[in-house]
C-alpha cells in the first residue's frame, strides 16, 4: 500500500472548472450558509446534538462534489465560515477520517495562533496515515513544539508517510542534534532487525546538519482564494 501525501487544495475558481452544474449549485448554497454562520456567533452548545446547516454540508461534501474534491470543498467551507476553535474541534471530534483530514489541512489558513494544536496532536496519536500526513503540514511547522515535532517526523518514517508531507522540513531540521540522534537510533534498530531503513531517513538526517541559514523555501500556500 503506498501512502500518497494529500493533494493540494483547489481554489473556488479551480473547482468551478471541474464541478458539474448540480455540484456547483450545491457548493454555492453551502458557501452561502457558511458565510451566514460567519456573520453570527457560534452558539452551538458543546454538548448539543444539533448541527448548524453548513456543518451538515461539510459532512456531505464528498457525495455532492466528488470524494476527490471533498478536501477542497471542506476547506472552502471552513474559511468561508471563519471557523473558530469550537467549530473546528466539533467538526474534528465528530468527523469521519476524511472530515478530520480536511480540518487539519485548513488550520494554517485560519487565524488560530497555536490554539488548535490539540487537534494536530490528536491526529499524530492515531495510526491512520492519512491523518498523520495531514497533521504535519504548515500549521504543525509553525506551531508544534520541538519534542512533538521530532516525534511526528519519526512517526512518518515509521508508518510510511513520505517525509515530503512534512512542511518546512529543512528549516525545522537544520542543526537539530536531537532529531539526528533519534534518526540514527532508529536506523540502528532497523539494521539490527535486518529490516530496510526507510528511504526518507537519510534525507532528513542530512538536513539536520548545522549550517548557515539557507534561504527558506516558502511553503506552498494551502489556501488560494
Amino acid at each position, binding site marked *: 500500500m503506498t501512502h500518497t501525501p494529500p493533494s493540494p487544495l483547489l481554489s473556488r475558481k479551480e473547482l468551478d472548472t471541474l464541478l458539474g452544474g448540480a455540484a456547483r449549485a450545491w457548493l454555492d448554497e453551502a458557501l452561502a450558509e457558511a458565510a451566514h454562520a460567519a456573520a453570527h456567533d457560534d452558539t452551538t452548545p458543546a454538548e448539543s446534538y444539533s448541527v448548524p446547516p453548513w456543518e451538515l454540508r461539510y459532512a456531505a461534501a464528498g*457525495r455532492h462534489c466528488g470524494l476527490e474534491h471533498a478536501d477542497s470543498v471542506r476547506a472552502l467551507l471552513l474559511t468561508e465560515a471563519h471557523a473558530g476553535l469550537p467549530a473546528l474541534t466539533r467538526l474534528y471530534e*465528530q468527523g*469521519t*477520517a476524511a472530515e478530520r483530514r480536511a480540518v487539519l489541512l485548513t488550520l494554517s489558513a485560519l487565524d488560530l495562533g497555536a490554539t488548535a494544536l490539540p487537534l494536530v496532536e490528536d491526529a499524530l496519536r492515531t495510526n*491512520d496515515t492519512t491523518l498523520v500526513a495531514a497533521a504535519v503540514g504548515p500549521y504543525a511547522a509553525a506551531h508544534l513544539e520541538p519534542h512533538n515535532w521530532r516525534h511526528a517526523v519519526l512517526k512518518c518514517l515509521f508508518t510510511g508517510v513520505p517525509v515530503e508531507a512534512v512542511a518546512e522540513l529543512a528549516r525545522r531540521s537544520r542543526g537539530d542534534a536531537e532529531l539526528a540522534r533519534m534518526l540514527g537510533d532508529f536506523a540502528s534498530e532497523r539494521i539490527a532487525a535486518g529490516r530496510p531503513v526507510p528511504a526518507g531517513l537519510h534525507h532528513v538526517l542530512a538536513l539536520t546538519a548545522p549550517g548557515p541559514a539557507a534561504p527558506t523555501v516558502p511553503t506552498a500556500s494551502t489556501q488560494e482564494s
Partner: protein
Amino acid sequence: MRIFDPHIHMTSRTTDDYQAMYDAGVRALVEPSFWLGQPRTSPASFFDYFDALLGWEPFRAAQYGIAHHCTLALNPKEANDPRCTPVLDALPRYLVKDSVVAVGEIGYDSMTPAEDHALAAQLQLAAEHGLPALVHTPHRDKLAGLRRTIDVVRESGLAPERVLLDHLNETTVKDARDSGCWAGFSIYPDTKMDEDRMVAVLQLHGTEKVLVNSAADWGRSDPLKTRRVGDAMLAAGFTEDDVDQVLWRNPVAFYGQSGRLHLDTAAPEPLHEGNSILRGGE
C-alpha cells in the same frame, strides 16, 4: 469471483481475516453497527464506536484492498436500555456522513415497546436521510418477529424496496419476499443457516433481491461464508452470472440506493457490468 459482504462486523476481526477475505474475492463490505457483546452504559460509548466505523475501520480495510461502508443505528437489544436511548437523538448528525449507506441494524430482539419505538423512529430517520434500512429479524420467535417487523415497515415512510430483512431462513423467506423487501441470509458455521440450505433456498426462490452475508462478528462465525455460498452455487449448477448477481450486484443495487456507495477498489474480473455499476446509485 467478486464478493460484496453486505453484513460483517470487522471491528471484531483480525487483519488475517481481511487478507483471507481479499484472497477469497471480497472487494467490498458493509459493517452494520451492533451490540458489542458487553453492554454499553452511555451514548458516548456508541459515538466512539460510530467514529471507528467511519474512521479507523475503513482505513484498515483499505490496507487490504477492500472498500468499507457502514450502517449506523441504535441496535434492538440496547434500545431497551434507557442509558443508551439518547443515541436516537444524536443519530441525525451521523447519518449525513459520506460512507453511511443505510440505517441499521434495527429491528426486534425481544419485541418490547421500547423496541417498537426505536424501530419506527429509525425507519423514519432512514426516510428523512434518503437511506435504506437494514432490519435484523429476531433469533427467537422468528416468524412472529418477522411478521411484526413487516407490519411496522408497512406503516413507515420507507418503501419496502428500500428495506433489507436480514437473518432469514426457510421459515421466514416466503413472508419476507411477499413483503417486497430485499431478503438477506446470514450463513453461519453452526445450524442457523448453512451454504447448502442457502443453495436450496435460491433454487426455490430465485436469485432476485437476495443477499448473502457472513454476519461474522465476535461470536462463532466465518468471514469466508460468502465465498462458500458462491462455490456451493456453482457446484449446484448455478452460473457464474447467478453467483455475481447474488454476491455482488444485489448488494451494490441495495446499498447503492443511498447514493453513497464508492467502490473504487478494482473488483476482480467483473463479469458483465462496467464501471458504472461499481459506483452504485450514482
